[in-house]
């Protein structure tokens, strides 16, 4: 699974969140989108739900990874800061499963 496919999976998860949100609360579907932390579009439980959706999308492709991370709630080092950092983090975990 390459980074473009991972990014597509993240975008799909954002769209799933957007389906449940009002028009003025939509999360931009973009590589630059901030997810969690400063200017993030998700609160802590929103992030949990979002990550579960991504884990399940990956499981549907027979990829079994856990996105829990001890830096999850860190504002500066968290891999969940934005779409770019999350893409890189998932790519690393997927590579480790090979």
């Amino acid at each position, binding site marked *: 699974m390459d980074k473009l496919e991972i990014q597509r999976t993240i975008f799909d998860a954002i769209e799933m969140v957007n389906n449940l949100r009002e028009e003025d609360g939509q999360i931009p579907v973009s590589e630059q989108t901030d997810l969690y932390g400063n200017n993030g579009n998700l609160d802590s*439980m929103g992030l*949990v*739900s979002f990550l*579960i959706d991504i*884990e*399940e999308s990956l*499981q549907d492709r027979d990829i*079994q990874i*856990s996105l*829990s991370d001890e830096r999850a709630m860190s504002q500066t080092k968290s891999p969940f800061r934005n779409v770019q950092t999350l893409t890189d983090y998932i790519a690393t975990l997927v590579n480790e499963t090979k």
Partner: protein
Amino acid sequence: MAVKNILITGSSRGLGKELAEHFLRNDYQVIGCSRSASEIEHSNYLHYQIDVSSPDQVSNLFFDLRKKIKHLDAVINNAGVASMNAFALTPVKTFQKIFDVNVQGTFLFCQKALGLLKKSPHPRIINMTTVAVPLQLEGESIYAASKSAVETLTRIIAKEFGYFGITCNAIGPSPIETSLIKGVPKEKIDQIVGRQAIQKMATPADVINLVDFYLSPESSMISGQVIYLGGIS
């Protein structure tokens, strides 16, 4: 009406087996697990032979389960180990085993079940604790400490998972005739029962009654609670 799916850990014997049989009688799809094989043979029963304290084995269980069911209505973290010993004579190996199964096992199942639970209309987590916590029983320091941890997990998970509509509660049975207490001397059991408001041994039916109460759709406002049997508080 959609089939209700319930997962029960430690379902091969004792209270876990009684719970599994109760829900099978009530047309649930029951997913059980334990270190040993199960004697339950029922078309609605699915058994995983795993160690509940193993992160990999629990992950694999849920990875496989997601291919079979689309949602989970309840998880009952029933698997547990106990050991009676004076605190000063308790080997560290015993400490680790008790915390691995009772605390880490509960932690893993609550965490890994979240994805399937949040798709249920009335998702529930029920954890098992013990009256050894409020009674602060001598000789059960590590077991009681592990269950204190389970009680705290229960209260905090209730707050965090409330976001998903999941309730998380605990049950603390007073002494019941199960394999968990078969090594405890009769005098000790009598002493514990003597400290209860209702001075008699509990039965699995008493626990099942409380489980049914927590599972009821009408119990959606009850979360983060620990109820002990026998009138212990």
